[in-house]
């Protein structure tokens, strides 16, 4: 047990070896050098790029972990800023795990969990989210009764009552955010038009628990996730799809630690791509846009879905796709993740501004993404040269 932590369980002990073995190669600061094309867009770590000090990069956070384990550091407010300006985008992880055989993201998550257990966290700004989760089982302080507001005008089956092969897991953000509810609706419309037999849980859908996990409240996350696993496994479907990248990564990856889901989990884009390829979705109308695609961290790096969105865009007639210098596994985070947008909106806005600047540099007139958090954060950047759209909007437009 470490000296400082009060809890009998110290999450840092799980990552102790990594924190010592960090070889300071500094690759965690940059995209894969073999993919570099533009010197203006080399950085991968948003907090490091903004705040510059070592502590704001994975390499520095490894040292903090080591310092805490050795009892050489005492908690202070600066620690919270260092830890919670990390969007947990996983950019540092790509190169480091591949070449360094280490897991820096795990160290960061462990640090957050530790400060939570030692009651240094949550941040005041995150307390609202956590209380919302306790009271409403969603982070948006919205009553459960309103969870199905997005689908009131649609008649969608309940998979517990009607046999379907697909469950559409909407997620809290698209369910509650008025600006994003149309994404949920469009997903449903597209699936219907393609003849997919799907259902939704409506008001009974539970939060995936991602918010709690990212805040460091692992115990609460585990409880919620366990509930969700039990609920989802009780429904007889072949697959579960979601249009939320955050839900996608949690359901697909994190739930494995809790036994996993029986059904196959995929992002809606993966299914849409299949349906386009099979001809079940017909893209008739031209959509004349020059687009660039932002890979959401939780869709790309966390679950490896890079090709499906690109395949979709290339299938839409009239679309010209240009890649940003930082794309696929090297995608630069939008700045919203892991509670950063809530706790540090100015910083989150700055990161989004960087990403939009990169998008503008491609000459594209449209920035496309596939994640509600990305859309919220990137959407806040006032940039007349480029329009932000969800990929499903383009699909819908082309379907007619």
């Amino acid at each position: 047990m470490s000296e400082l932590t009060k809890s009998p369980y110290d999450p840092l002990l799980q990552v102790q070896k990594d924190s010592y073995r960090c070889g300071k190669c500094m690759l965690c600061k940059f995209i894969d050098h073999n993919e570099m094309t533009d010197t203006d867009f080399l950085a991968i770590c948003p907090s490091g790029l903004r705040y510059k000090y070592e502590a704001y990069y994975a390499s520095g956070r490894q040292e903090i972990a080591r310092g805490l384990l050795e009892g050489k550091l005492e908690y202070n407010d600066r620690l919270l800023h260092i830890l919670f300006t990390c969007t947990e985008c996983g950019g540092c992880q790509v190169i480091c795990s591949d070449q360094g055989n280490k897991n820096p993201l795990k160290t960061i998550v462990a640090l957050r969990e530790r400060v939570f257990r030692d009651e240094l966290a949550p941040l005041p700004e995150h307390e609202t989210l956590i209380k919302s989760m306790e009271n409403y089982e969603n982070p948006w302080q919205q009553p459960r009764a309103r969870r199905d507001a997005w689908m009131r005008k649609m008649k969608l089956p309940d998979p517990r009552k009607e046999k379907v092969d697909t469950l559409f897991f909407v997620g809290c953000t698209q369910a509650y955010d008025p600006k994003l509810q149309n994404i949920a609706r469009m997903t449903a419309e597209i699936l219907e038009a393609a003849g997919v037999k799907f259902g939704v849980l409506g008001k009974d859908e539970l939060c995936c628990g991602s918010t709690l996990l990212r805040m460091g409240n692992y115990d609460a996350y585990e409880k919620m996730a366990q509930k969700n696993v039990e609920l989802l496994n009780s429904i007889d479907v072949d697959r579960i799809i979601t249009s939320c990248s955050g839900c996608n990564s949690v359901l697909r990856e994190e739930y494995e630690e809790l036994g996993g889901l029986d059904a196959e989990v995929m992002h809606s884009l993966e299914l849409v791509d299949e349906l386009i390829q099979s001809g079940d979705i017909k893209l008739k109308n031209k959509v004349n846009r020059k687009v660039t695609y932002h890979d959401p961290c939780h869709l790309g790096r966390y679950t490896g879905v890079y090709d499906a969105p690109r395949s979709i865009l290339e299938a839409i007639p009239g679309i010209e796709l240009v890649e940003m210098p930082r794309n696929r596994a090297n995608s630069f985070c939008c700045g919203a993740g892991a509670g950063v947008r809530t706790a540090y909106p100015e910083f989150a806005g700055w990161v989004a501004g960087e990403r939009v600047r990169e998008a503008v540099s491609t000459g594209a007139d449209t920035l496309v993404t596939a994640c509600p958090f990305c859309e919220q954060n990137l959407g806040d950047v006032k940039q007349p040269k480029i329009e932000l759209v969800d990929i499903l909007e383009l699909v819908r437009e082309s379907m007619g």
Partner: protein
Amino acid sequence: MAIKEIDLTVKELYEEVYTELKKIVGEEWVENDPMILIGYSRDQSLETAHNPNLVVLPESTEQVSKILAVASRSGAPVVAWSTGGNTGGGCIPQRGGIICDMRRMDKVFDVDVENMSVRIQPGATFGKVYIEAEKVGLRNAVPSAPASVSMLSNYLDKGVFQVSNKYGVGTDSILGLEIVLPDGEIVYTGCLSQDNYGSICVEGPGPDISGIFHASMGTMGICTQMVAQLYPLPKFEDIVPSRCDEDDMERVTEFLREIAREDCTIETILFQDTYLGMGITMNHDGAEIIRPQLPRHNAIVYIGGETEEEMEIRREQTMGVLERTGVELSPDTMLELMKSLVPWERCFKIIQVTPRVERMTGCFELFWFNIAMDQAPDMARHFEKLTRKNFADTDPEKSDRPYPYELATFYLQALEFGRSGMLEMDAYPNQGEPEGVKRGLAMARDAIPFILEKGGQFDRPYGGEQSGFGWVQAPLLGTYFELLKGLKHHMDPYNIMNPGRLGITADQAGV
């Protein structure tokens, strides 16, 4: 002593310095918070961690000059830190003090295509410069180090490159320097010593003082700008992988020498199976697939030319050397295997941009030194014995990445027509295990004296007192070391610039 005898406690001193530094760089760019300081306490070496007292991030030479003037007045040690990639403890603040983190000074100013040069700041990485140079058909000479490392620091530190046989070592690529001296004064050397010199690739003017700052680890001043040489980027390129059996190390050393004399290749380096596996595949799983299929010794030969015809002529010359020296061309199956593991273009970029990051156990311990080529086989064989002695009984099951430690690796690079060679020998202690660190230090205690005894020279005297080449070598250097001490004392009378380096004690520094 590191801090002048004044009527202040250490805490008060640094509070004063902190206040002064804030006036220079602004509040945002100077820190004394322990959470920030600890990020600068370690590097990849086995040197003990030490925290600085302050970290400051200047954005201009003028700010660096003012910072050093403050440090000089107060006696606070200063350690320059460009990208933190030093592998020999060079930027660990052994005596505390101020870390001068140069990363905000990361510009690549301009690539001079006609004269094949580039002007850079300390924070500019190899990768960044490579991209800019490639756009205009040029390349920087790249070491066997991550592309995230500072090019300026590496060149100043006598970096050795895959192209060193052809283009020399890091110091050969330095055309001009801008240095902030310990008292804050700024001096320019080489082509920067006058505004209108352009980029000139010869030493001078006059006695070349730039050498004082080579491999000095910031002990004589902080370099804030460099004009560096670039080289032609071949339009056509290929790799000729070659192999030799383990018992024929003499043969493959001879091959390297012959290739160097023939001067028909751009890069030629000798790798072992472990090293090559990691270098090509860049991960452990890939290395584990490739390693058993490789012979112990492999030579990677990179040929190229302006035209395909030239490249083929070079290939023919290379094949001639292979035949003369009895080294075999690696079979196509090996090439196919490598291509299946990684995109082929990446192999070139790996060699050109990010040659290798082998981190099998999280870090590695390196000893690199200069020798006559003939000495390489014996040195390497003895080194293998030393690693077996120090690591072989380690239980790989206890490590989360079991790897046979006795597989010491080395990397041999012929220099300048094979007149001499740079031999790097690596061991793989696990920093995550106290036992691993202990073994690594024991390895250093064995290896360094052995290398010196057998005629190896460390031209980069890395390390602190714990495991440093510099400390063991320095007393053997005769009059050179006497002059070095005198120079250090003269340039830095209060021994504030990265004290505890170059094998110079505080007493010897005259403080």
